[in-house]
């Protein structure tokens, strides 16, 4: 770039900003917003499901169908329930682990622990689920009578296992960034450890937990493979979308609106905690 051109660019911050933002915005517009819009539009068409061809007639049938069929709403409700359960369980497990890593473990073992938490992210998702399937074999399996068998408990447990690192990392970063004096201040003002934790640490960690929950929640919400492997006869929204997708795309699109809405509502809710800027 010539010096001259750079001087001009320097004088025009708007131009620079445009240059920086345009590539990502065009990309996301083209490859994210456009497909979503197309998908939403598709929900208002219908398929001749025998031939697999879409019939381009505007119709709200699919959307109305999805929103009024009790079976689908029930599945949506259960799916949200699973996502909430997974998120809570992840938070419950992540808190002591992250607290230990940040406050108890020595500076030398901290990176090791962090690596230990991160490593499972590289093991294949499918293999991990399959390992859980083996672990959870009802009766006579590894866990013997302690196994909950295949069902919702198994689904929540397995999803928690899969997404736990996504919760541990932000919570760990949150605790680490609480400078020592916050924690000391509570003790100094008379609070015992548990009171400190309840009154200061937990509320201050809320944004970090919320940031982690975006992942645990959304990844659980969209999953359809885990439930196939360890969910017994149960189904989640993802399965509904997946199983109808190839037969009846407009219907699947209408179903996909449900997780989309749930997630949008979720993001709006936690935006107030400031979690989104931490992602």
């Amino acid at each position, binding site marked *: 770039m010539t010096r001259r051109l750079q001087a001009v660019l320097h004088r025009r911050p708007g131009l620079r900003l445009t240059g920086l933002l345009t590539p990502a915005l065009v990309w996301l517009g083209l490859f994210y917003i456009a497909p979503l819009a197309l998908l939403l539009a598709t929900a208002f068409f219908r398929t001749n499901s025998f*031939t697999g061809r879409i019939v381009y007639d505007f119709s709200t049938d699919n959307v109305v169908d999805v929103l009024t069929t009790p079976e689908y709403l029930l599945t949506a409700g259960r799916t949200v329930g699973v996502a909430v359960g997974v998120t809570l369980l992840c938070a419950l497990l992540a808190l002591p682990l992250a607290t230990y890593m940040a406050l108890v473990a020595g500076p030398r073992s901290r990176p090791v622990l962090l690596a230990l938490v991160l490593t499972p992210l590289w093991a294949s998702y499918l293999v991990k689920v399959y390992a859980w399937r083996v672990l959870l074999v009802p009766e006579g399996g590894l866990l013997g009578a302690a196994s909950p068998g295949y069902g919702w408990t198994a689904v929540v447990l397995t999803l928690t296992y899969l997404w736990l690192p996504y919760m541990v990392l932000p919570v760990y970063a949150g605790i680490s960034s609480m400078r020592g004096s916050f924690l000391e201040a509570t003790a100094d003002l008379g609070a015992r450890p548990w009171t400190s934790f309840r009154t200061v640490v937990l509320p201050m960690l809320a944004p970090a937990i919320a940031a982690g929950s975006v992942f645990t929640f959304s990844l659980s919400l969209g999953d359809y493979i885990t439930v196939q492997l360890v969910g017994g006869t149960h189904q989640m929204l993802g399965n509904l979308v997946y199983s109808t997708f*190839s037969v009846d795309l407009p219907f699947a699109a209408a179903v996909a609106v449900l997780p989309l809405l749930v997630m949008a509502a979720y993001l709006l809710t936690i935006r107030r905690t400031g979690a989104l800027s931490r992602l």
Partner: protein
Amino acid sequence: ACGGSDDTAPVLDDSPPEATAYAGPVGQGEGALSVLAWPGYAEDGSTDPAVDWVTPFEQATGCQVTVRAFATSAEAVQLFSTGEYDVVSASGDASLRLVYGDRVQPVNTDLVPNYADILPDLKNKPWNTVAGKSYGIPHGRGANLLLYNLATHPTPPTSWADMWEPGSSAAGKISPYNDAIYIADAAVYLMAKRPELGITNPYALDQTQFDAAIALLRQQKPMVAEYWGDVVKQGQGLASGTLSEAQGWQLTANLANTDATTVGTTKPIEGATGWSDTWMIKKDTPHINCAYQWLNHIVSPEANAQVAEYFGEAPANTKSCALTKNPDHCTQYHAQETGFWDNVYYWTTPIEQCIDGRRDVECIGYDEWVRAWTELQNS
């Protein structure tokens, strides 16, 4: 929300879209072929160097083959509809949809020399022939058997009853197939159990018959451990006793019995559903020569024997039985045992025009089957 008169593809019409078969001759290959197949149907040695009938084809014809496997018939239809594939191994519940969806072309069987050796039993069937035109080459067949754990069944079961009747000893440990086409299994049982419904073809159900089948499935659901979609998973369950009875394939039992014999199979007295796959060619494929060469290759005695053994099914080519490594393979799979197949109802896509020939009622079309199945799964 099914078929109105504004559909572009005719559904209620007797005749499929206008199409003529390739007249031939089959000449030099175009150099490339894109294959969509059930896993195990088109092995190129990448899984196991010993299992390879694609490479010899490539060497013989110069057609470079890329293979994509699919997991369900629904996926097969969806993938093939993208137009990316030249040939597909379609089961009976997919083939008609491809035909009526105008995705495939009629096949000129004269251009496939090995067609002559195909079991007559499999030729000109509703799932591969429409309006007198053949739309593909039969590849093999299998029945959806009753699989059972030997430990819990000192005497072999003879009926599907334990999988359907409430209070059965297998409750909580049964495993039906996870697809809308399983509604036909309910219909097969009803054919024997409730003759008054008048079901003659499990793929041609009017509203009453359909409702009865769904009711039966709903009654079954609480007893289900898992709807199966994976033979390894299912075999493991049967072997360990987690599953007591299941609808499934001979292949599953064979797998489960590799270490010790723990799983038995039987075709119950009510009969069973089954499948027969057909190799079909994409409409307007630019690789027509390679496609015909592939069809001929894959049903050749050697290749067909290899596939049948590797996948676990009865070969379509009558000469294949002599070529299997396991000399008992064809016996085990009842390949040429005509009587065995009498009460096996091959997967066929249900359409609104009853395929059992009734003209006084409308049957329930496939999309309604899928909806009903989806709702059942989510209830």
